[in-house]
């Protein structure tokens, strides 16, 4: 850590908990960072002369006479074009063996964009995955997480989306990333020849958990540099935000705050919103799109972490294994892209909204038929047809291994409608049926 000449050094800690230390000091600012026995710490509470510091690495082995010096500034990141292609830890220090970055120091966790200065997102992001492009179309400037159980291949899907998204920069914020997944990302980006477009801030499972609290702000400070200063389209990948929230709860519980639902801090909503709301379309052309991962436990989306996330983000992509076809699909029921209205039928073919809705409705009918079947009832002819439709729809459109363009997705859908249903059963606006119905 840096040290400054003539700065006052304190050596008397009055209190040590698992994540925090307290000492008497003067002229200390809120949020300021400090070095405690060489470890980075941040001021989280001031009462008179008692300063409480949160130590990101944890307090194991910190003695009461540890040297403490205050740096008089919040956490910062050096930004410049040199960030591209580099890998950093949670503090913004290089971990790829390369040189230090030269650039301008910026405070992380900077102010929000004035809402009247935002532009309405309108640029479609095509991923080739029909479960996304057809049913949950993404738009640049959007913020959206994958909701997935830990055994789903969310990092793979996310890497695919990132590479197909045609972003100028991809910023990876890894929190509690397993070393294997870290290497996986590195490999995929390398193989795609995309490394020079990627900036990574990584906290792996080997690093202390509280350090991850810095990762989203580091990643987003870099993103704002490219989006605002360079007018670039930046895609930020945050994985896994559940582990980020867990770190929040560790800190707040150790600071004796009253937990609310699921032991999460009462401020979880604001804490997460502060990060996700960094997604933006700037009027000057730059944009920040955030694709995150929120792992679920046992598919439970009512847990405080996915629940608060869903209330903040502009939809969610729900991954689920479809046992009928033995593949992972983007579940059309629980998934949603709230910004799709801005592009579907406008940037895509006119029939897109209605085709999407009808197909999902018919897929829902199939789910009902399956329930009937499970309850031992006879199926009607319509039930049988919905089941056949659902299987083919799932395999040809919902599966995450699909990679076609949106017109093709629409054509496949019309093909399936014609194959299994009558026009009245599909119930789409007449002028569209006349134009696109296939027999």
């Amino acid at each position, binding site marked *: 850590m840096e040290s400054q000449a003539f700065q006052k050094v304190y050596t008397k800690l009055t209190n040590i908990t698992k994540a925090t230390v307290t000492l008497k000091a003067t002229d200390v600012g809120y949020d300021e960072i400090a070095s405690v026995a060489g470890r980075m710490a941040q001021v989280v509470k001031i009462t*008179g002369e008692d300063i409480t510091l949160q130590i990101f690495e944890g307090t194991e082995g910190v003695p009461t006479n540890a040297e403490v010096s205050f740096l008089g500034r919040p956490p910062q990141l050096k930004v410049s074009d040199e960030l591209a292609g580099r890998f950093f830890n949670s503090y913004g220090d290089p971990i790829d063996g390369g040189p230090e970055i030269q650039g301008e120091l910026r405070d992380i966790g900077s102010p929000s964009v004035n*809402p*009247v200065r935002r532009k309405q997102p309108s640029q479609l992001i095509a991923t080739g995955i029909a479960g996304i492009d057809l049913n949950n179309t993404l738009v640049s400037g959007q913020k959206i997480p994958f909701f997935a159980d830990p055994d789903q291949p969310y990092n793979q899907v996310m890497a695919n989306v990132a590479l197909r998204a045609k972003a100028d920069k991809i910023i990876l914020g890894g929190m509690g990333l397993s070393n294997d997944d870290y290497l996986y990302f590195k490999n995929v980006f390398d193989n795609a020849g995309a490394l020079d477009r990627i900036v990574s801030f990584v906290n792996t499972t080997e690093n202390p958990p509280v350090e991850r609290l810095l990762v989203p702000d580091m990643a987003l400070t870099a993103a704002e540099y490219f989006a605002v200063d360079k007018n670039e389209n930046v895609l930020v990948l945050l994985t896994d935000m559940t582990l980020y929230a867990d770190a929040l709860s560790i800190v707040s519980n150790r600071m004796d705050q009253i937990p609310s639902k699921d032991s999460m801090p009462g401020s979880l909503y*604001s804490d997460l919103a502060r990060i996700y709301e960094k997604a933006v379309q700037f009027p000057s052309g730059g944009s920040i799109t955030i694709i995150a991962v929120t792992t679920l436990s046992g598919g439970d989306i*009512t847990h405080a972490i996915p629940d608060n996330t869903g209330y903040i983000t502009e939809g969610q992509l729900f991954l689920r294994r479809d046992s009928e076809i033995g593949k992972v699909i983007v579940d059309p029921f629980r998934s949603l892209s709230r910004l799709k209205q801005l592009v579907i039928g406008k940037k895509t073919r006119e029939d897109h909204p209605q085709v999407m*809705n009808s197909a999902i409705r018919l897929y829902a009918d199939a789910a009902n038929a399956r329930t009937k079947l499970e309850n031992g009832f006879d199926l009607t002819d319509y039930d049988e047809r919905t089941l056949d439709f659902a299987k083919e729809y799932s395999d040809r459109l919902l599966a995450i291994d699909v990679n076609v363009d949106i017109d093709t997705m629409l054509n496949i859908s019309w093909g399936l409608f014609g194959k299994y249903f009558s026009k009245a059963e599909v119930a789409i606006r007449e002028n569209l049926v006349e134009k696109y119905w296939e027999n």
Partner: protein
Amino acid sequence: MEKENKTTGIVVGIVANLVMVEVNGPVAQNEICFITLGDERLMAEVIKVIGKNVYVQVFESTRGLKPGSVVEFQGHMLEVTLGPGILSKNYDGLQNDLDKMEGIFLNRGEYTDPLDRDTKWSFKPVATVGDEVKAGDWLGEVDENGQPHKIMVPFKMNGTFKLKEIAGEGEYTVDEQIAVVTDENNNDIKLTMVQKWPVKVAVGGFKEKPRPFRLLETGVRCMDTLNPITEGGTGFIPGPFGTGKTVLQHAISKQAEADIVIIAACGERANEVVEIFAEFPELDDPRTGKKLIERTIIIANTSNMPVAAREASVYTAMTIGEYYRAMGLKVLLMADSTSRWAQALREMSNRLEELPGPDAFPMDLSAIISNFYSRAGFVYLNNGQTGSITFIGTVSPAGGNLKEPVTESTRKAARCFYGLSQARADGKRYPAIDPIDSYSKYLEYPEVQEHFAKNISEDWLQNVLDVKDILLRGKETMEQINILGDDGVPINFHETFWKSELIDFVILQQDAFDSIDASTPMERQKYMLSKVLEVVGKKYSFDHFEDVSSFFKQIINEFKQMNYSEFKNDKFFHHQEALEKLINERAN
């Protein structure tokens, strides 16, 4: 309220946006103060006092704030500034004009003027010299975007006054003197077009607040037809995320028959506000031919903006609403989401280490919510004119569980309940308002029933109750079919079920993104309801239960095509004929 000598203090403690200040003089609960941080002044509000220690919640980030910083108390609570020029403004929760701020990012400590001081307004006096006047009485009016904006005796002025001078017709800025009144002690008080009011205090100045009795048309069928809200009524929309709260509120704010629409984006997404910024200047207000933005005020305190200002934002919105209501206007106020406001209260209460109530919310949450909802309402002003604030808030229940404290507290305060159901949203049955659980207490008001009989039709109420009945029976029958199987029940069970599906698809479901279907005027709602009831009322013969569903699907399809067509144009009638043909083939 202004004090001679301002109380000052110094910062002695900081936890996030909660700051402890040691003071040297008197302070009031909810008093506003400014904390000096270098060149910046951070606005804060007193939330607790213990001896010389005052706890304030700061409306900004406290990053870099140090103990010893000087604090200056202002002698008043958080106030809004009221005067012509509020319409079509975009404010933050503290009524800063967002458009006047510098740069792309919000700068800490930047506070901007809510009014435009240079604009000239053409003023017309409506009171005459010698008149006895009191707070809220109209002195004159200016034209604000086509609305008669009344210049009133300030709400803060207690007692009776005599109008001594009034400006003649002409162009004035908001700060120019437009009247002089004399109080009981013969003191002259000069008045301009501007006044201030503390947001947490309800504005009075009206004669009477009767029960609301008139329908407020929203164009949303499952509200207007099934569970209508009234002018001056209250309602709330709880629902898990993604079930359509915001889309529904936006639809209502575009279509509702109101003079003024105030949208408080309270702790939700910035892009949703941007959508309003982008759309409203383009959309026509069908009643005035002007653009929607001209009747709209936006209070944007999105989720990434300071939490304490989020709490203030709903009060700011309500106070502005009360101001326009006092002019005899119909105000529609929407807050999305009141849960974020409750969470802001929770965050502060936790930092204050208060004894928490259920789910760590403050103990008095229920009282706070009720108190807020009670500020809405229909009023008779002192001059006999009427004005109203209709308030609709969304609630975002944690985990989608309607038994949580914010939903439960709101249920006690609001008269209409529009519960959004996850299952309906999953099935893309939008708007996902649950037709069975939702209610409007106004349907039970005799004065509302009378209004319907007079203004819609004698049998309207009965038709609505019949529809509710059919929907309920449909649901029960579906449960039976699910238990006993399609062929385990008589065929007429299928008929009952499909009749309720017909109502669901044709009346309840409405595509908010279709240019025609999005808004249905009352006349069209009446027409469609009677058509649907006509179909439902007929007897049909079916040989097999599968014939039932395929018949009704055809019917539904024709009806939907009607919903997508301009009312009573050729296409509309073409589908109506097709419909009648289908029915005649089947009916006994």
